[in-house]
């Protein structure tokens, strides 16, 4: 059992948007020793007061099944979908990346940002802020490249994910 390999899964969790619901989800992960690689949450239906939480986690298949069952057990949770299993799905993350510098490095940063389809959303004579969207791997790669070119600050949203095709969650 414990020899089984750890896998990364992205779960979509539809919850009532009520006080404390995020604390319940996060508390469940910390209390039971599960991993959180990334977590995003926002209201998705104002009239219905529902929020969608996207959690990227990792564990053996047995642990992943436990996480799903434990989440489903929370009273304000409507639905849990394992997007990694119920694939195909698409995953996106956004990052804001601040790079400071002048001369060659500044030009190179701008050139690379173009290759990554990053947008410049703020600029001074000595800095840029790029907005970049993509899979977590793409953002890792972009941030990695900027490191040598004067990276000073980065903030990431965490992944959001949605199943392909016409069906709802």
């Amino acid at each position, binding site marked *: 059992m414990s020899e089984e390999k750890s896998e990364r899964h992205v779960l979509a969790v539809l919850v009532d948007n009520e006080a404390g619901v995020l604390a319940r989800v996060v508390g469940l992960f910390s209390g039971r020793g599960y991993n959180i690689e990334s977590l995003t949450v926002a209201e998705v239906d104002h009239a219905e007061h529902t929020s969608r939480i996207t959690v990227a986690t990792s564990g053996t298949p047995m642990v992943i099944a436990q996480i799903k069952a434990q989440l*489903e057990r929370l009273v304000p949770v409507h639905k849990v979908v394992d997007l990694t299993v119920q694939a195909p799905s698409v995953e996106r993350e956004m990052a804001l990346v601040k790079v400071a510098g002048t001369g060659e490095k500044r030009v190179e940063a701008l050139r690379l940002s173009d290759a990554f389809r990053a947008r410049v959303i703020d600029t001074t004579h000595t800095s840029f802020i790029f907005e970049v969207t993509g899979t977590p791997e793409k953002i890792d790669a972009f941030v990695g490249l900027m490191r040598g070119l004067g990276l000073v600050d980065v903030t990431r949203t965490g992944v959001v994910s949605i199943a392909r095709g016409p069906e709802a969650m």
Partner: protein
Amino acid sequence: MAAREMTGAEIVVKALIDQGVEVIFGYPGGAVLPIYDALFKQNDIEHILVRHEQGAVHAAEGYARSTGKPGVVLVTSGPGATNAVTGLTDALMDSIPLVCLTGQVATHLIGTDAFQECDTVGITRPCTKHNWLVNSADELARVMHESFHVATHGRPGPVVIDIPKNVQFQTAEYRTPAQVSHKTYRPQVKGDMSAINRAVDLIAAAKKPVFYTGGGVINSGPMASQLLRQFVKLTGYPITSTLMGLGAYPAADPQWLGMLGMHGTYEANNAMHDSDLIICVGARFDDRVTGRLDAFAPHSKKIHIDIDASSINKNVHVDVPIIGDCAHVLEDMIRVWKSKVSQPDKSALSTWWKQIETWRGRKSLAYVKSDTSIKPQYAVERLYELTKDRKTFITTEVGQHQMWAAQHYHFEEPNRWMTSGGLGTMGYGLPAAIGTQVAHRDALVIDIAGEASILMNMQEMSTAVQFMLPVKIFILNNEYMGMVRQWQELLHGGRYSHSYSEALPDFVKLAEAYGGHGIRATHPDELDAKIMEMIETPGPVIFDCVVEKMENCFPMIPSGAAHNEMILGDDPEGATVTEAGKMLV
């Protein structure tokens, strides 16, 4: 016509009445005074004033477990709420339905470190099934009714409603239970029929089957116990149960193997280990039951009926999971069994029973009798013999005495046995007995206690006296935290670090000080007469049963060992504790 506006406090009381609540266990304080005022003005609900909020929660647990109805608790903010935390955790672990109302400082003071403010919903989030902070009286009726729904549906559990003091004074419209339904919480009670079909086929084909049942059968209600009995009889298969499930199947029946697990019988544990099919009904493969996981029932297929999907495949992989309520699933199973005209494999079954009889012949609960000192097992045996023909309820504290009670007191009915299984809370037994007695005024309610545990909630004796609740506290007094001492003997070279109580109170005088009756027995010859005296005393009794100090509780599966590696009482060298086992609790 608009409904009459009520204050928040009145809404609370009205909702309790409409939910059919007859009694609540509580302790007042500043943040719940309006609710206490509303209670003062009515006669439908009885309030039992405890002496410590932990006692209120355990009392509500005893009430719930012995009636099948939710227990209700009312405590104040801050220390009132934090004192309730152990009881809530206990109820969560043992799936006991409770509604706990806590007072809170006024909404505009929340977050200011006001007097007796604490983050009650934060503190109780991990130890409740769900909790609510009520921000306005408009929400109160809905939350009250929803809370009963959540506590009692699906896998039962404790819920907390935190009610700020200003909300108790605000006015709002009341809504009846019929006007409120929970938006989303609808646990599945019917099992999947294809899984039930597969299970029945496996059950019919098994050669070495065993039923492994648990507290879920009791929680499901008396019907589940009836159906369990019916199905076990139909199959002729052996049955064992966890500590929490005792009484669901009658102990007097020949198919009953006794309790399984760490202090279970030789026949129950060996039957589990050698089985080719385990039919788990409302139990959760807990570590006290499975022993070393990789050696647990290695050759068996497993069917698991549980209302909580998260219990499935948590510790042990099962072949046929069935999510649903025990009673519903058992009913369907019996129907399918009959419609398929299923027949157990007679010859395999008779071989299996022969094997079980040889294990039974080992008489694993036997102990060395004494003419001079009272053996704790003997005390429980005599207590059983002298009380079994009455309507008797047994609660326990935690320790050796608890295990001896489970082994030597035999239960024929569900809801007669109240013990702290999952959390193992010393101090549970007396308040639980009080709650049980409140629900069954004419019954004989006995807390089988240890002298260390009883001191943890001894103050509740005062509650028993005030409300004329004639609970009997039967202390197996070995002067040691016996279970701790036993582990120190087995695991730590007999170094009895802080497990001896140097200065115990005189329990007879203590009983008298509380206004109860005290009895002491020190010799086996006087035991029966003194037990009779206890039974015949109309009020609360503390019985100081002075027992053999160094007795150990056997059989025992040491931590980290397998079911077939038990230590038996007459062969204490039979198994040893591994280094890995020492790491476990």
